[in-house]
């Protein structure tokens, strides 16, 4: 257990084994890339045909939202768009595992989770179009605002989970009442102080939070190998709670693992780190050009692990969905694309004074004075209203 060069401390390769291209032996999988069901000793589940078709529909529609939004950016209708291509299973699996009473904290790429929480995708487009600040009411969806600051939401999530403990909605044994927090972040954020601090707080207070890390292998242009010497899920042990690595391109496994971790949190047993092992197939955002820093071989390999294709194969091979289902879904996706295009272009530009209504829930006298002053200034322009 010592370094070959005679130094002290454990040899990481001996402790964790050689680097694994495919997620390693700890990768929890219920559906192989070839669309074959795998049985897992701990996390196996039975899925109804309805449930499977539901996952499939979610993923197809979410991919459609993503592709359409990317096109809208190229049409000049959005300022920027953060693509989720390739991460559909990780997001739908996690999003569907959360119950209505759970509270979800997203990054800025959680379009699939937003979809599961019932948020109109047009609300997302408003943020990326720059006509609002992504200001949906978090309490209406139990879905927080998109957070652009990397990793900051994990602190909010941990604080919120500690609040749940104080509200007495954890570990009561009442399934309708017990709640937990689902905190999203990425491999890049795992290097942030915020994320590490939230791990410590969550562990110390045994907070009901599931840290859901979509390891898409890239922090913009920085590969995961430079972010961590050990598999990310292993880090949880150092903080004092369990960590699991799930195939993030396998919607079934992601669902099973996330809902088990959430249940553990709701039961009052504390935090879990779930590392959803996936790949960012697109660019970081529409402003990025990944060909400048990554190898096409990797992309090619991950293409064969497409999350939608493997479930489609499973559905077809087992006769769980007929041609009509796929045809209807195609039509639904096309209609969704149309709705997004038209809806995006129809969004009104914000009024200059709107910003004053969006800062505090109860406006302060000082802010009222500022608003009135600004309104008076605007009124000096011809044609102002």
């Amino acid at each position, binding site marked *: 257990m010592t370094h070959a060069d005679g130094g002290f401390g454990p040899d990481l390769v001996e402790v964790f084994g050689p680097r694994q291209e495919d997620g390693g032996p700890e990768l929890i999988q219920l559906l192989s890339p*070839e669309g074959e069901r795998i049985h897992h000793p701990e996390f196996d589940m039975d899925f109804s045909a309805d449930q499977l078709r539901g996952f499939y529909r979610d993923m197809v529609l979410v991919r459609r939202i993503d592709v359409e939004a990317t096109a809208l950016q190229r049409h000049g209708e959005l300022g920027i768009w953060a693509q989720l291509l390739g991460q559909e299973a990780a997001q739908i699996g996690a999003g569907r595992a959360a119950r209505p009473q759970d509270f979800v904290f997203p990054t800025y790429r959680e379009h699939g989770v937003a979809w599961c929480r019932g948020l109109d995708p047009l609300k997302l487009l408003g943020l990326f179009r720059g006509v609002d600040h992504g200001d949906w009411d978090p309490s209406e969806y139990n879905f927080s605002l998109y957070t652009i600051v990397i990793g900051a939401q994990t602190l909010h999530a941990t604080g919120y989970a500690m609040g749940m403990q104080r509200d007495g909605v954890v570990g009561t044994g009442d399934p309708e009442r017990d709640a937990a927090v689902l905190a999203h972040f990425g491999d890049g954020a795992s290097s942030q102080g915020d994320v590490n601090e939230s791990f410590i707080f969550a562990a110390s207070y045994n907070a009901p939070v599931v840290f859901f890390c979509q390891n898409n292998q890239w922090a913009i242009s920085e590969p995961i190998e430079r972010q961590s010497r050990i598999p990310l899920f292993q880090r949880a042990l150092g903080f004092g709670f369990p960590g699991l690595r799930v195939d993030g391109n396998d919607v079934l496994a992601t669902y099973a693992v996330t809902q088990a971790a959430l249940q553990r949190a709701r039961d009052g047993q504390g935090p879990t780190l779930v590392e959803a092992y996936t790949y960012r197939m697109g660019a970081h955002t529409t402003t990025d050009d990944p060909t400048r820093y990554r190898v096409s071989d990797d992309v090619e390999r991950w293409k064969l692990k*497409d999350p939608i294709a493997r479930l489609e194969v499973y559905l077809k091979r087992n006769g769980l969905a007929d041609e009509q289902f796929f045809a209807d879904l195609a039509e639904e996706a096309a209609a969704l694309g149309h709705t997004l295009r038209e809806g995006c272009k129809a969004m009104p530009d914000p009024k200059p004074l709107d910003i004053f209504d969006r800062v505090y829930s109860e406006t302060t006298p000082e802010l009222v004075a500022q608003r009135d002053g600004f309104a008076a200034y605007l009124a000096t322009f011809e044609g102002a209203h």
Partner: protein
Amino acid sequence: MPEYLLPDVGEGLTEAEIVTWKVKVGDQVAINDVVVEIETAKSLVELPSPYAGEVTAILVAEGETVPVGTPIIAIGAPAEATGEAPESPASDPKADMVIDLSNPAASGGGEGESLVGRNKADRGPTRRARRPLVEAAGERTARADVHDLYNQNATDQHAKVEHIVSAVLGDAEHQARAAGEPTAGPVSLPAETPAATEAAGDVRVLAKPPVRKLAKDLGVDLRSLEPTGPDGTVSRADVEQAAGAPGSDTPTPGGPGYAASGAPGERETREPIKGVRKMMASAMTDSAFSAPHVTEWMTIDATATLDLVARLKERREFKGVKVSPLLVFARAVLLAMRRTPMINSTWDEAAGEVVVKHYVNLGIAAATPRGLVVPNVKDAHALSLVELARAIEELTATAREGRTQPADMASGTFTITNVGVFGVDAGTPIINRGESAILCMGAIQPKPWVVGDQVVPRQVTTIALSFDHRHIDGATGSQFLADVAGIISDPATALLF
């Protein structure tokens, strides 16, 4: 009549150049069909049409740079087609739609088949085979099942999913295609290292990423150009000029299709000597006529080396590392140099000295999409076998991707060129400028061989060594070649060094 205004595809970009129109007046386009490729300060981007209908006007010519917000194309309503017929249908709609999605962020998606990848049917089935993946046999079978299922039951929806994936990920294929065509032909002898005479790190050419990409695609070495762009940057025009014909595929000498590249009726094609070719020519001539070359040959039985390679592959340390005969040759060269250090030296004409190096920067000649490059493994003499294997793998992978940096090619002290990969027996290699010797590996093939008094099939190869006869005499060169051959025929003799 809707007009498509040039969007800001980055954050805060003010202008872009129209590079290539993918449609022309009279074409029918659907929403999100790619209509044009533009170049911004950040990248090349393809723009999907926001409108469906007939293209009624192209408002900005290729090569023009216009501000964001400028109308670039007018597209009529689908039913609005006038009686005036377009001059001719698109020459080849498939060719028009061969899209280089070198930037996966480049294109949006769209209305199913109207999205890029219209020609997917052509390339789909072969796409995955082009890049064999490391898979267990059982896995591959399972994949074959998946593919069968796809092919038999592909629904419209599925096609869309596939289209989207292949469109957005198109770069991978494109690059794979490029990498699959070695541009250096069978006469793959090492080029010079262009930066060899300059200090590493001195060579920093300024060019926008799209220009770099263009240069890579056209096989133009940016460092060979006189920058005429703003702030001393190399412009697109510089690259195109160096490449000869703007936008055309410059045939590579000896490359596939060379003979057929002329226009019908043309008995000769004149190609400018520029870019990589020019530099290679200058280096070759310089080396060939300044250093008196002697080449010696040896045909040897490499069976034991192939056995060693097979055994190494089984070892735990070599898991995930590429092990090939080249590795054993590299190691053999490094060991043999201990007895004949003069092989690893430089003739310093100006100083009137021979500089014997106590380190080895081992060059490996690599055929790449942009031509022949010779990156070298720095301080190869200090590496263990597995470290050497990793270093060679990384260096050749980088070279194949066209990402070899000038520093990687500078300061080489000895080169190995492997023409065996082209199935050639051997050749007379030309010494890499600034070095004193080069070893050429030929193909390793089963041939009759005399062992004792029996003729038996053995894995036989021919190796050739060229050395600078100004300071390396025949005895030294022969000793070195014999030592390398000895290790290849019987790797156990490595213990002697």
